[in-house]
């Protein structure tokens, strides 16, 4: 059941448009084990995949839309959990994290001409971050306006923030912050807002399954005066294990929106409250008012991933029910599920897709309208 904090005005309850999708293309990934993460680069022309087979593959998209694997290499000595791209302003840079307790930074080297002809490229390791004592569960680059900064979180409950002071030298990274979250961490998300009104902020989720410890999501905010990150808020209502979190792109709003993948899908609104204290004497983080915007239990099981599209108008979630669901807010801010992607158990017959059977109410009704327009008397 979804709830909304807005009272709809009389007369117009608007529905979001139904999203119809089709499988355009299926790519044989060729990993020898489970794929844990897929990540598009900033422009959507390249893709990185990582797997329990300890390798990362990079794929390039050609003009006709076909994906080609241009690099495949062993990155860690354990399952690779996540892979992520840096902003293209920093060049072609990837970061990966693994069960082997390390995170690594990789840079693409422009190769020899024969490599280019064969469509191959080389990635070399620039650094290995070995500070963690346990499996590193997530790795994310901070928003680019903060410079080249990398964040990791581990099963030992520590979030580490590294910085490369010279962006032309990716082998030098310094550990700037080490934050102990007390609970085993599973995911991080940076608030993408680059507005001066909002200091840098990130959220950490914990997959600790003990329900008696409240607050499996913590929000940290950077303080200009202390030059440190301090905890701004703990979401006490989230008591179950959290598997993924994602801040929505900001769009010039004064508040923040955070999606959480836990035993259900939840969307929170975090509203910064104006403090009476002057900026210069403030040593604490901004007070945040937490409101729940929506809660969906349609997956009826654990939710593993949540992610926003570029304009934060669509949220996608995937769960133990084997489905990916798409959520959209209408223009009255009521959230509704507008699409489901579901594994149907059928084997793959062709390698490329055609817009095939899409059973929706739209297709059938428009078809009969056409019959009406053409004056066919069938059924009338």
């Amino acid at each position, binding site marked *: 059941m979804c709830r909304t904090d807005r009272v709809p005005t009389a007369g*117009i309850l608007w529905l979001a448009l139904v999203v119809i999708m089709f499988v355009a293309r299926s790519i044989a990934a060729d990993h020898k084990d489970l794929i844990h993460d897929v990540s598009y680069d900033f422009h959507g022309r390249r893709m990185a995949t990582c797997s329990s087979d300890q390798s990362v593959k990079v794929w390039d998209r050609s003009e006709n839309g076909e994906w080609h694997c241009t690099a495949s290499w062993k990155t860690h000595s354990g399952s690779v959990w996540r892979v992520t791209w840096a902003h293209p302003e920093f060049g072609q840079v990837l970061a990966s994290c693994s069960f082997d307790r390390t995170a690594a930074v990789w840079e693409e080297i422009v190769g020899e001409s024969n490599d280019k002809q064969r469509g191959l490229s080389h990635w070399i390791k620039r650094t290995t971050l070995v500070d963690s004592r346990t499996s590193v569960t997530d790795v994310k680059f901070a928003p680019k306006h903060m410079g080249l900064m990398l964040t990791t979180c581990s099963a030992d409950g520590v979030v580490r923030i590294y910085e490369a002071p010279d962006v032309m030298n990716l082998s030098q990274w310094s550990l700037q912050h080490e934050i102990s979250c007390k609970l085993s961490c599973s995911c991080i998300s940076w608030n993408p807002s680059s507005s001066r009104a909002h200091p840098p902020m990130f959220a950490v989720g914990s997959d600790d399954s003990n329900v008696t410890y409240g607050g499996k999501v913590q929000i940290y905010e950077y303080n200009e005066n202390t030059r440190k990150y301090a905890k701004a808020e703990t979401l006490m209502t989230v008591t179950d294990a959290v598997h993924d979190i994602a801040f929505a792109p900001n769009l010039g709003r004064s508040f923040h929106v955070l999606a959480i993948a836990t035993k259900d899908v939840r969307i929170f609104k975090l509203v910064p409250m104006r403090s009476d204290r002057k900026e210069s004497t403030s040593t604490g983080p901004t007070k945040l008012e937490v409101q729940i915007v929506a809660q969906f239990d349609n997956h009826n099981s654990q939710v593993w991933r949540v992610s926003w599209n570029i304009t934060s108008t669509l949220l996608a979630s995937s769960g133990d029910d084997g489905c990916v669901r798409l959520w959209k807010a209408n223009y009255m801010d009521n959230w509704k599920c507008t699409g489901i992607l579901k594994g149907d158990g059928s084997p793959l017959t062709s390698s490329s897709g055609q817009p095939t059977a899409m059973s929706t109410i739209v297709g059938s009704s428009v078809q009969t309208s056409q019959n009406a327009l053409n004056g066919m008397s069938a059924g009338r």
Partner: protein
Amino acid sequence: MEELDVEPAITNIPAASDGKHLGFAWGPGDILAYETLYMAPGCSFIHEVRKDEDIYSPILRKLFNESHHIFVGLQTIREDLPSKNKKTQFVSISKNYRSVIRACMEELQQVLQKWPRNMEIRYVSILLAIELIWNLCEVLFIDAAPAGPLLLHLLDWVRLHKGDVDEKAREVLQSESPAEHHDYWDVPGGTQTLTEFDVKWRHWHEEVDRCLQDNSFASNQHLEIICKILVGDEDTLLEHKELLSTWYHFLVTRLLFCHPTVKPTELHYYAQSCMTMFLDLRSVPEPLDSILLAAFEFDIHQVIKDCSIALNNWWFVAHLTDLLDHCKLLQSHNLHFGSNLREFLLLEYASGLFTHHSLWQLAVDYFDNCPEFGHVYLELQIERVPLDTERKALKVLRICEQRQMSEQVRSICKIMAMRALRNNRLGSALSWSIRAKDAAFATLISERFLQDYCARGTFSDLDLIDNLGPAMLLSDRLTFLVKYREFHKLYEENRFSEAAKLLLSLITAKIAPRSFWMTLLTDALPLLEQKEVSHSAHCPYLLLYHLTCLVYGFIVFCYGSSCKVDQLLTSLIKESVCRFAGLGPEGLGTPKV
């Protein structure tokens, strides 16, 4: 108002069996790539799932392009025009939109004649529906004809969409009694008032009715039927349903024969009853029927809402709503996000365009005309446009520069500069970093140029460096690079005294990197040998003086210094050179090391 509960669409993905996890990632423009979790080695698949996008249709592309043109024109209609003039313009714009839709339909039909199994066939019904609805909206809302002309417009509307079916009907209706028809089509608004027409019509109606009652036409059954139709006898009309394929055709026919002076506010009553009578076999009306009914009820918001759901196409609702908004027909519901309905729909439509490799440029104008969120949507989406070629990057840049989106400009230039640097295209990297106003990066690239020169003895990208103009001032290193190259040029052209002067200024301005001091010294030596230089007044001595200071500085740099040594050496140099040149100590200025 009741809310239609719409079930979400289910898309089936092959090769992932039930119960397994599906991972996913958002791509640009709502393209998801997601993986299956598959236990057997080496067979995992990634499926690229895409929204069923109309933007990929080559036929609709023309629709998008031409409607964009109309849209932009509409936004420029001045607010201060008198409303009568505005209304004419709005009607004309509405007709323009419709003609674009019709042109698209015709083209589509031509394509389908050649390739009947083309996927584009699904657009036929959509476009037909759109034009039908739009036309009705134009008649009822935009043109807003009063009673009298209203029916004429409705007749046109039905006729336009009935095509040859109507032809047949008209033939039947007209063939038997031309006289009545001749009088009948002498319509109001021309030479007579509504009341005059109404009186005449009623008189005629009563006469025909009386004839029917008298059984005057009993001998000719055909004629009797026709007369019954002419007086709008419902049962007779319904018996000839096949001529009237739709309930709205039935409606207009009935109005024509029973209530030709119908008022707009009375329409919905007749519409509802006609629909009920016509659709006796069907319990639930089709979406198209509900939309048309809502239009007859003048419930604009319901029309828009139902169209959004039924047509899965933002194009139509976005443009229609925008036009209706300009006609001031929409109540605005202000929201904290999405501003109002018009803006919400335009933002959705334009966002969809952004994923297309060329249509994204149209989207920019739509965002420009969304005052609340257009700018921030544009910022977010334009920086994701892939910069495949320099030409495309320049296009994107121009758009950003025109809108003072300085951060996006800087970012795009930086991305291009970085890409060029990685591929060792120093000239390109330099021009991009100048455009980005990135002094640090310009410094870095200038140093690479200088390193290159040291290694190979020549400069690359001379065209660029020679023509930078004031841009060279972006960073000290860049300025030095340009000036140093200029020095070499002067030397090659045998303009030695100018070269010497330039070299001198380079040394004294302190912008040369330390690594270059030896090079500068080496460059200076042959100069001193040139007759031109050695014979000009103070130049060689000044040059010598400053070179000596340079050497001194170099020694200090290599070996360190002490204050005493410093002072001693400085005064020694000053004295000796002054004596040599016959100058007083002030004439040399302060040594710059």
